[in-house]
């Protein structure tokens, strides 16, 4: 396999907190343009893995490779600059700021103008225009000047995704994007996920199996810090061990 086609890769990634091992020998590969899902029971170590991928948590051993470069020792913000974006399971938004500003902050960082002190933010048309375009693709145009905390939860979740998209990432990690969203509003999120640019590699962590089987072309199952199995949706759906792990889950064919 051509190494450059790998957007994100981990090699023997391990993490222990003292005697407690939360990740063991994880070899994970995310191809460019991938639509990949990471599933597993609670406590399997999914969020720990994401935190190691993004640089929030340092692994005990192993490597994280982003677009062919070893970023294991690289800090979170620097990984973002190299094309890694993420959303959070619990919204991490600038709640008291308007929706536009939330996205504009990310766009400005990417464009390298966020440090400017003497020209007004308002005058940066390129940042505003790009942010408004992005909001339009997510159906948030009319909410642009509202404060995030005044929005319903489903729309807030969309802003969460918008901020990550504003970074024009090459790799996007979505941590339970539909979590907590009332079913009425989750349709919008599914639409957005379907329409994401085809060249971005996307890893989605989810518990909602409908979403997973609808969205993912490859699925990795994580159990107790180790990869149980990885494969296409049918393979996973029919695997006996996966059924055992998710006792009581409906079959998806």
């Amino acid at each position: 396999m051509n190494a450059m086609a790998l957007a994100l890769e981990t090699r023997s990634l391990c993490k222990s907190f003292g005697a407690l091992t939360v990740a063991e020998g994880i070899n994970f590969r995310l191809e460019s343009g991938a639509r990949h899902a990471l599933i597993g029971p609670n406590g399997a170590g999914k969020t720990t893995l994401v935190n190691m991928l993004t640089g929030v948590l340092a692994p005990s051993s192993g490597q994280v490779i982003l677009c062919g470069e070893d970023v294991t020792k690289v800090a979170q913000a620097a990984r973002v600059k190299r094309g890694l974006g993420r959303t959070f399971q619990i919204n991490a938004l600038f709640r008291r700021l308007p929706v536009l500003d939330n996205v504009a902050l990310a766009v400005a960082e990417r464009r390298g103008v966020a440090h400017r002190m003497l020209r007004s933010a308002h005058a940066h048309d390129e940042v505003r225009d790009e942010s408004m375009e992005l909001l339009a693709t997510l159906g948030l145009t009319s909410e642009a000047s509202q404060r995030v905390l005044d929005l319903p939860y489903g729309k807030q979740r969309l802003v969460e995704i918008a901020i990550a998209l504003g970074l024009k990432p090459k790799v996007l990690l979505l941590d339970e994007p539909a979590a907590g969203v009332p079913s009425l509003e989750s349709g919008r999120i599914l639409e957005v996920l379907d329409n994401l640019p085809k060249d971005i590699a996307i890893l989605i962590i989810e518990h909602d199996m409908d979403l997973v089987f609808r969205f993912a072309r490859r699925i990795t199952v994580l159990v107790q810090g180790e990869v149980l199995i990885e494969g296409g949706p049918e393979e996973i759906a029919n695997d006996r061990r996966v059924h055992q792990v998710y006792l009581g889950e409906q079959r998806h064919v």
Partner: protein
Amino acid sequence: MSAHAGGYSADPRIRWIEWLPWVVALCAFFVLPEYLSLGARILIYILYALSLDLIVGYAGIVTLGHSAYFGLGAYVAGILAAKAGITDPLVQLVAAAAAGAALGITTGAIILRTKALTLLMLTLAITSVLLEIANKATDLTGGADGLSGVVIAPVLGLFKFDIFGKTAYLYCFVVLLLGWWLVRKVIYSPFGTALTGLRENTLRMHAIGAPVYWRLVLVYTVSATLAGIAGGLLTQTNQFVGLNVLSFESAGELLVMLILGGVGRLYGAFIGPLVYLIAQDMLAKQFPEYWYFGIGTMLVLVVMFARGGILGIVDGILVRLRRKT
């Protein structure tokens, strides 16, 4: 509607109401000549409060050690004037600014790696270090007696510092105007918005690739520079500098002024010192024990019931008025 200035949607042009404080200040010059020294003090503390608001209100760094930069600026200006014979006020002011900047960047780079209590503790420790030095290096600083004999030459060789405080007032006015212009530019800039982002959700700022630490060091340095300038102005207008510029009580008082006016609101730094210093002038001399009791009570009440300060209360009233129409 966000009460905070700045952001990508905000129109940066100066609204007519923003000229009001300056009009008032100039009127005061002509109409209240007996109060010019109080006036100059208010102008200086507005600059000082603006510098603190940049880091407390905008960047969200809670510090009790801002008086370190104010005090350093004050002493540098004083020592240059009284001990080194450098009497040109603009040179003194530049030196005070440079000292503030130097201390700001070095201490900022060190302490901004920490947060919350550790950071607060370090700010206190740094101020304590300066206070000890000022106390003990009596040859240079006059120790507990303070430094007198501060000589100030005419500004630009033309405007002599008169005993009525006219020159001092206008001098402080101009410096404050420049400082305000700078702070306002920063607040309305992308950097200012990023600062607000830092305050609102530091985690997210990391996750969008912002170099959080360096941004904080930068704003901290700018803030320390302004505080140093304010300190220098104080020495120049009083022609004296004492240990109280470095005391915790005065650091606490500055926070009171800021919270009174409204934190994170550009003009909170204007209203707070104005109200506080005028009230102090009128009341504190009569009833000094009651004054601190009143300030303490007010602080507790503001935190519990009126967190936005005076501007917050004004906002609330405006919102209610708008609802009625």
